[in-house]
């Protein structure tokens, strides 16, 4: 059958085999059942293990289906895990940019703030981890929407609440903005939520390129934007570097 990817077929066969087996299976058993070279079976198992679809027993070295398969529909990366894995990159982003950093994920049509680093000026600031922000009026939200077609469709169909004169309340304008985010690989918001404030964000990707969150800086519009009102390219570069660094840590190969 032309056009089919052989390694995916084999991976599917391994998953079926594990699903139908009463106990755990070793690499040798799997290779023999499918008539595959042991090295090939091992490579596929290691990949399936890396994405959480199979688990290896520490003592026997044998494999079984992974817990991730049971809740494929729910988010695969725990939000506290995301914070833990990105904390070492969020701090330098705040230090270099001089701005507050937030990391967000999608939660029920909102941005859930999972991590917040203060602006490094020692002024009085309050942690807003756990806060929910609107998707269409924040840089983090626009980035998350740009890579989630189904949530984007829901948001575009619904009421777009105006927070300021510049909030994108027209679905077509928002759809264009999301396309622009995908083209550029980052997104921004200039006084669309709060007058005088702006933000820049970029996607955090897990294995296979799945977007699992967004990281961004936000602050006074005159610091975030240049004199022409465009997001400052240096800050954009810092944000994208940090997003790439976290993504690499999470196992995204190309980012």
């Amino acid at each position, binding site marked *: 059958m032309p056009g089919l990817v052989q390694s995916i077929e084999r991976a599917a066969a391994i998953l079926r085999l594990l699903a139908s087996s009463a106990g755990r299976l070793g690499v040798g058993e799997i290779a023999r059942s499918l008539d595959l070279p042991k090295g090939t079976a091992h490579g596929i198992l290691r990949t399936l293990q890396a994405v959480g679809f199979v688990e290896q027993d520490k003592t026997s070295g044998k494999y079984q289906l992974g*817990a991730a398969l049971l809740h494929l529909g729910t988010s695969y990366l*725990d*939000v*506290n*895990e995301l*914070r*833990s894995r990105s*904390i*070492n990159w969020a*701090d*330098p982003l*705040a*230090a*270099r940019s001089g701005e507050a950093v937030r990391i967000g994920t999608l939660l029920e049509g909102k941005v859930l703030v999972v991590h*917040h*680093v*203060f602006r*490094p*000026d*020692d002024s009085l*600031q*309050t*942690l807003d*981890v*756990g806060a929910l922000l609107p998707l269409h009026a924040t840089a983090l939200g626009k980035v998350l929407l740009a890579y989630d077609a189904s949530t984007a469709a829901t948001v575009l169909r619904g009421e777009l609440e105006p927070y300021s004169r510049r909030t994108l309340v027209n679905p077509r304008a928002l759809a264009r903005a999301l396309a622009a985010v995908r083209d550029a690989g980052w997104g921004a918001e200039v006084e669309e939520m709060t007058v005088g404030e702006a933000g820049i964000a970029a996607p955090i990707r897990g294995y296979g390129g799945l977007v699992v969150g967004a990281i961004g800086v936000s602050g006074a519009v005159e610091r975030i934007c240049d004199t022409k009102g465009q997001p400052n390219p240096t800050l954009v570069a810092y944000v994208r570097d940090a997003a790439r660094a976290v993504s690499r840590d999470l196992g995204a190969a190309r980012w």
Partner: protein
Amino acid sequence: MPERYVVSIDQGTTSTRCIVFDRRGQLVSVVQREHQQYFPKPGWVEHDATEIWRNVERIVPRAVAQAGAGPEQIAAIGIANQRETTVLWDRRTGVPYGNAIVWQDTRTDSLVDELARVPGVEAVSQRSGLPLATYFSGPRIRWMLDNTPGLRERAERGDVLFGTMETWLVWNLTGGPEGGIHITDVTNASRTMLMDITTLEWDPYLLSFFGIPASMLPEIRSSAQVYGTSRTVLPGVEIAAALGDQQAALFGQTCFAPGEAKCTYGTGGFLLLNTGRELVRSTHGLLSTVGYRIDGEAPVYALEGPIAIAGSLVQWFRDRLELISTAPEIETLARSVDNNGGCYIVPAFSGLFAPHWRSEARGVIVGLTSYITKGHLARAVLEATGWQTREVVDAMNADSGLALRTLKVDGGMTSDNLLMQFIADVLDVPVVRPMVAETVSLGAAYAAGLAVGYWPDLEGLRQNWHRAGQWLPAMDPQRRAQEYDNWQRAVERAFGWIKQPLA
């Protein structure tokens, strides 16, 4: 003029890392390498000092190259190290006598029991500032001399050198058998039980009490001082600082004023309070230790409360109970319930450290009912770290007469928001996280940079410190008191579990 940097080597329990810092105290590059952990018997933990030295030889040039710098751009090297881990080696060959005995190792427990009955033991704590315990290096040296055939004779002839990890690294960096400098810094020396905590010199009384020949011991130096010049790895660069890792974290957190404290939450938890020029003797189960000494200045003392089990309880929950698959998931699980359901875990896995020092205590889970879920257990795991911190802070306040006003935190557990909030709640003070997470490495870099004039003074270093996050206390005082009482009753139930075997 090309940018100049400071190199810091953090020789830790599980790995060694080299970090290059710039003038603003920002991390420029980092290279890390793990070393093998040896567990030859229950309670024994060892490292191969030669492997650790080889790792240093490999990672330091790599980190400097990654920073895009050459040795001529490195202003100084600073070292922070796992404390109390003990190495003995041959002065002429540089070969260690067996593996290094690691700080977690409890093989000296029966030796320590014996020593506790020797006449004159009362003066040991008074002179060293430390309780007699397996935790410190002195008993380990004695154990090695007693248990390695021929070693004591060789030591008495002057052929054997002792060091903690910073001593071993400095000796090797400065030439090893060919003229290596044999020194230790005063913070590390203060953890041997062999140093007089007031004069900061080796104490002949303590040496004879433990039966250790003076010729093995390194010379005690300040923490920030040029010790010598590196002959390998980064030839020509000055080695300008060494501190025990927890003291380095105190320095990296810029706790320079009396009353300032930090707690590092990794495998264990280590709370250190700067007590200034004054040596505070604890009457509440804390250690008196040297915080740091800048050359030419008086030493700065600290009170320390080490907690043996903090993050390792989370690891136990993950690896032994298998209720979570990664450490951060403990927070997700804990948030699945609103409170601990009346359940408390006292993680006295190998006794309790500060402020109790009860080696016969063992872990307990109390308050179990049919209502308790794994969510409640997850809460109890995190709360154990909070309450252990509270006990140490209470002891510190009582000993120092200063009431702690904020706690600066660092280490892997600071990414846990629920835990950080809980610590603020039970201490009733703000908990603050700094922008540079690598405070141990930063502290060693700061001390080295200070010694060579790369940074002008402590005030300059303070300017580099920024608040990255802060948790404010929000717990109802009555509930706090009630919960603390429950915790203390749980701790009592952990005491006295291990008994001498029935004759």
